[in-house]
């Protein structure tokens, strides 16, 4: 069931096998109501998630990407999520310079027993993505869009007139 009465959006979830995937399962078993936009990809550990997975998903047309792992100090592999936290934080901070709305990406921690927290996270994130609406394709979709883009950008002159290395 979609969160809102709208078209389903494409949200990709990277969930660690040991905590968050279990948390999602717990939520499911408990029959908590959840939006269905999220497509879950199970990974061994949040430390397995290359931030480029997220980038690739966004450039391939995902409307949102959610990463969830074990709470810090609770990583099944002791320290995978500590590394993940640094990488994902940097990704989140990086997105604004690309013009991709950083709200389309989020990372969080959900343990296997936190079915309710999972329900909350996925509902909130899905709501947020629906508020943002479908993501714009990085490749202009039609010839006309190409033309408009090229003309608009040309009319602005150089975005960074002074740059020079």
């Amino acid at each position: 069931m979609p969160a809102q009465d709208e078209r389903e959006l494409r949200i990709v979830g990277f969930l660690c096998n040991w905590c968050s995937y279990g948390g999602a399962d717990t939520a499911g078993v408990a029959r908590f109501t959840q939006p269905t936009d999220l497509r879950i990809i199970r990974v061994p550990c949040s430390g397995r998630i290359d931030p480029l997975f997220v980038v690739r998903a966004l450039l391939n047309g995902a409307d949102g990407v959610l990463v969830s792992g074990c709470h810090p100090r609770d990583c099944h592999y002791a320290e995978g999520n500590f590394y993940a936290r640094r990488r994902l934080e940097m990704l989140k901070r990086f997105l604004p310079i690309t013009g991709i709305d950083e709200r389309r990406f989020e990372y969080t921690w959900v343990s296997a027993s936190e079915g309710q927290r999972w329900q909350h996270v996925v509902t909130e994130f899905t709501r947020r993505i629906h508020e943002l609406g479908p993501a714009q394709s990085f490749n202009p979709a039609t010839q006309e869009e190409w033309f408009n883009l090229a003309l608009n950008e040309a009319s602005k002159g150089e975005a960074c007139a002074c740059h020079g290395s």
Partner: protein
Amino acid sequence: MERFITEANLQQFAATLAGKKHVLAPVASGGTTCFRRLVPGMRLDFSRMAVISPKDATFPRNETLLLVQRYVEESGKKLELKEQLPEGECIVIGSRPCGARGKLIFDPVYETEAIKDPYYLRRRDNTLFITLSCDRPESTCFCHSVGSNPADGTGSDVLLTAVEGGFFARAITPKGEELLADALFEEAGTRAEEAAAKQTKARELMGQAHDFSSAAAKLLERFDDMGFWQAQSNKCISCGACTYMCPTCYCFNITDDEAGLVSRRLRSWDNCMSHTFTLEGSGHNPRGTKAHRLKNRVGHKFSYYPDLHASQIACCGCGRCIKQCPAGVDIRQVVMAAQEYVDER
């Protein structure tokens, strides 16, 4: 046929054409000048030679060769292949003589008795070149060393020469004459002489040409001298700026992309300076270092290709590879070094 067109009218001519056809022209973009698809409203930028060559017109950076649709039916799996031959005409406005002539290097390779590359042939036959002759050479220009000159009309349909107030236009092919029939072109009057004088001056400014006549043999002689090639390639960073800028580099890659039940076979520019270009499945690489690769790049242009194709050097002398090289590798110098090499052993 000889005509004249004012600068403003040329802009208008280009804009009108761009409204009807695929026009590729040098456009100022982000502080640089590149060939781009001209959109009505954009202005031609003739102030400098475009960084990227007009090769895209006849050999786009990537094109789909085939589309493949898979079906899973009860009777089994089925595949449907769709050939994706290019359609439509293209007009290049503002190429320089080197770029227009450079594309001819493709012909003996892409059209032989046995093999005809339909993608290239269609594009070539459906592309017109309105070329701008150069009024002064840049320090990287050496078209005169590879059998051309700054006002060479080879490979062009119309040759423009900048004169007072606009451009003197000479049709080189019947299709070029059709273009010049447009009402925006005026009587040429006495401008033919002005243009001729300009062209002569440009040629004089180029100075002494390099003599590459012994390159084919000398490069082969140096083939096994890896010390020579290591020295020549010291500063090379093995990127693809030279090959992708080059109007004559014709090597390509073929790769498949897959999404669900649809896949496509893509042809894209490839780069002989990259490690993967010749990397074999077994892990063996006959050109494992940048020295091997530079040897092949220079050898191909100045030795192997001329050997196979009537002594024609596979280089149009546009100098883009020199000007755009992040490390300043100068192909002229490499060839001269091979020619002048004295074996002291």
